[in-house]
């Protein structure tokens, strides 16, 4: 019973691979990972489990380095990152403490303000008295990781399914951030990357019978410093310490105008003792009692409302608060405080993406992508026809030519199965790889057929086997050169060409290991006299 299996295991292996590909292509559970709030069938593009890349589905790809400079091998001398950042920042006219970061684990100091030049940064490092090894462009590993997680967060928040962000390193050692968002235009993606989550402070106050809101008494730019979220010393709650700017290019400073607004809305009168509370109801937007309230608004939504400490209200009434501008944004939950801190400080990326300076971006509309999908299918089918035509013209024997074409198609089918299994998005470059695989695949089948049929008829199995082995030496050598030639493309960061290389190599491997031996067996069954 085992004998037929043993004799035809190569053909059986091909059948198994084809069946496996069918499962991967059409079976449930191999489809694209659905985005949050999306069902599995919605995530699927078309009838198969195949995923399409930007070229074929529409979308935007942005690839850019992070602007900034990093001093490496810095002798920090045990100083805390804060001390270092402050010392360096004071030596730079155009950067604040926020733009300078020290990473003791990497012995590195970085500046992320794009307007700071390399020589300015070197001078500042010298002036601050920190010895360093070298200054390179780019930022530290930590900042890159942070930037990636901020971008990932933005993509997730915006509900863009299939969006991805990764770091790639170029041959010169420079790091790039690669962001891919299917189905979105270039401008939308760049806006998303550059936009900050907006945080502002509104004041709600009783107005006649209802509640009125004075919007934007403090906006993001009004904050000079934003601390990290901290747990409240008394009670539950958490807070973010902030400092409001007391400088203005013209007119009143943000700190003064905030102080005036607070006094005008009657905070000092309403909050006399610790027992005075804010009675704002976030559901209805009404104030229960007659006290005015500060509202913390994130992305247009009120996330917290609070009253004011009597001492603070008093200092505002006297007009002395604006000098320092310190206060605390309180929240109920610690995690909420963290989000607010992040949104205030960032929402913006820790370092800017230098898209127009050193980056690339490309964007394809969804309809264009869909066209490309149809076109590449047509191109693929026609190329296969061209190959099939040549093969028929050459051999004029369906016994040889037909299995050849079927085997070549099986190879492409197996590759598609792999693509579905790996969840590798199909792109134009991958399609080119498929066509290249059909080309090489048929080449090798031609070698096998010619070799086996040369020198007269194939009468016995031994003759067949020896000729087949000889043919296989050439095929193996040819496959090895193709793999060697394509492998640099796989690892070098050359746009989408790595997909081309990966699928050409994968195709060659499937060909040499599975389909070409199987073709040999098929041919033997058809040609040898049994």
């Amino acid at each position, binding site marked *: 019973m085992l004998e037929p299996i043993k004799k035809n295991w190569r053909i059986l292996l091909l059948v198994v691979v084809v069946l496996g590909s069918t499962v991967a292509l059409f079976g449930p559970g191999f489809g694209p990972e659905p985005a949050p709030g999306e069902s599995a069938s919605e995530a699927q593009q078309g009838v198969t489990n195949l995923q399409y890349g930007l070229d074929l589905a529409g979308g935007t790809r942005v690839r850019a380095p992070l602007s900034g400079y990093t001093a490496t091998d810095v002798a920090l001398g045990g100083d805390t990152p804060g001390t270092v950042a402050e010392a360096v920042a004071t030596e730079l006219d155009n950067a604040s403490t926020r733009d300078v970061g020290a990473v003791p684990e990497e012995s590195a100091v970085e500046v992320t303000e794009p307007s700071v030049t390399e020589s300015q940064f070197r001078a500042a490092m010298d002036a601050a008295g920190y010895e360093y090894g070298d200054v390179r462009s780019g930022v530290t590993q930590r900042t890159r990781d942070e930037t990636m997680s901020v971008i990932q967060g933005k993509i997730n928040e915006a509900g863009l399914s299939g969006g991805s962000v990764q770091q790639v390193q170029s041959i010169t050692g420079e790091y790039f951030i690669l962001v891919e968002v299917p189905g979105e235009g270039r401008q939308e993606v760049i806006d998303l990357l550059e936009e900050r989550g907006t945080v502002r402070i509104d004041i709600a106050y009783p107005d006649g019978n209802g509640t009125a809101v004075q919007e934007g008494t403090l906006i993001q730019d009004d904050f000079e410093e934003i601390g990290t979220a901290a747990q409240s010393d008394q009670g539950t709650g958490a807070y973010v310490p902030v400092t409001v700017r007391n400088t203005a290019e013209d007119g009143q400073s943000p700190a003064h105008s905030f102080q005036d607004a607070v006094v005008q809305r009657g905070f000092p009168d309403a909050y006399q003792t610790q027992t005075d509370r804010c009675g704002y109801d976030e559901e209805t937007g009404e104030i229960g009692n007659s006290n005015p309230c500060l509202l913390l608004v994130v992305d247009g939504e009120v996330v917290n409302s609070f009253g004011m400490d009597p001492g603070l209200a008093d200092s505002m009434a006297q007009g002395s608060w604006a000098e320092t501008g310190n206060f605390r944004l309180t929240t109920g939950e610690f995690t909420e405080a963290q989000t607010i801190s992040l949104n205030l400080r960032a929402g913006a990326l820790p370092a800017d993406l230098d898209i127009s300076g050193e980056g690339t971006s490309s964007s394809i509309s969804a309809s264009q992508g869909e066209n490309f999908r149809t076109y590449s299918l047509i191109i693929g089918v026609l190329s296969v026809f061209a190959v099939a035509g040549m093969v028929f013209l050459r051999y004029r024997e369906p016994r040889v030519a037909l299995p050849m074409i079927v085997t070549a198609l099986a190879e492409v089918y197996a590759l598609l199965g792999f693509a579905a299994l790996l969840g590798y998005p199909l792109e134009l470059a991958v399609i080119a790889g498929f066509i290249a695989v059909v080309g090489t695949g048929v080449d090798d089948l031609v070698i096998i057929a010619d070799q086996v049929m040369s020198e007269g008829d194939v009468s016995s199995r031994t003759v067949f086997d020896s000729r087949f082995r000889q043919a296989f030496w050439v095929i193996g050598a040819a496959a090895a050169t193709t793999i060697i*030639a394509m492998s640099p493309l796989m690892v070098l960061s050359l746009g989408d060409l790595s997909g081309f290389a990966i699928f050409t190599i994968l195709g060659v491997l499937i060909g040499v290991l599975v389909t070409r031996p199987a073709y040999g067996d098929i041919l033997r069954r058809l040609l040898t006299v049994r």
Partner: protein
Amino acid sequence: MVAIEVPKVNYTDYSNRQLAAVPLAFLVLALAIIGGWVVATGAPANLGLEFTGGVELRIADEANGDVEQQIQTAFDRQPDSVRTIPGDDVVVVTFQAAEDDPEGLANDLQDQADAAGLTTTAVDQVSPSFASDTARTALFGVGLAFLGMSVLVFALFRTFVPSVAVVASAFSDLVIPIAAMNLLGIQMTLGTIAALLMIIGYSVDSDILLNDSVLRRTGEFYESVSRAMRTGVTMTLTSIAAMVVMAIVASLFGIGLLRDIGIILSVGLCADLMNTYLMNVSLLRWYKFEGVAR
């Protein structure tokens, strides 16, 4: 029905010098063209967007009047090229990177297109410094691939002359398409780099087949050559057929990447036919009849 018969070449009629003269002439000519390009333009080929930096817009041709006319007036800078894609109703407009102000060029251009009532279906932007980085990476990649292939070939055959024949013919297979690209006005893009790497992989196949047949099999020299040739020419012709079809259909639909790969591979494979069965054969014959005897 027409059948493809691989013709039998009567190699005995020609001396080695005569055989090698044709491919060598082509190689010298190709090198001269590339050299001329370097002198004239500072680069060995017409560099495309990916290697120079710039912006490429795809603008939908909605058949409401003369789009090309509109494009000429829509932008405040002169486009470097405007191509109409017949199969897809789009016009591809390319702008080289601005030295003075690379900032926001893509946005400006897209805004200008919108303002003129044109629908942009795709935008590609590459900054100049990124582009020069890409060019270096690409050159490195091709060099590495070629080196790897050469080492492998030497390891496979372990004899000097036949290995050199394969490497030399692969080199010529690379150089001739580059020269042809220059003459045809095809730009060097990432797609053509992929095609060049593919040539390294593809073209060596027929050379290996020939060497294998002559060196590793029993049989008389000319018989071995004609046996290898029958298979090799079929192989190369099927590949050329696939690539020509891909190039034609892709250029109808305006898919630049596939078109470029198709054209380059077609030219490269044609060059390979010549190099393998003229240069390579003559080198092998010299090796077989004179080199071994020495």
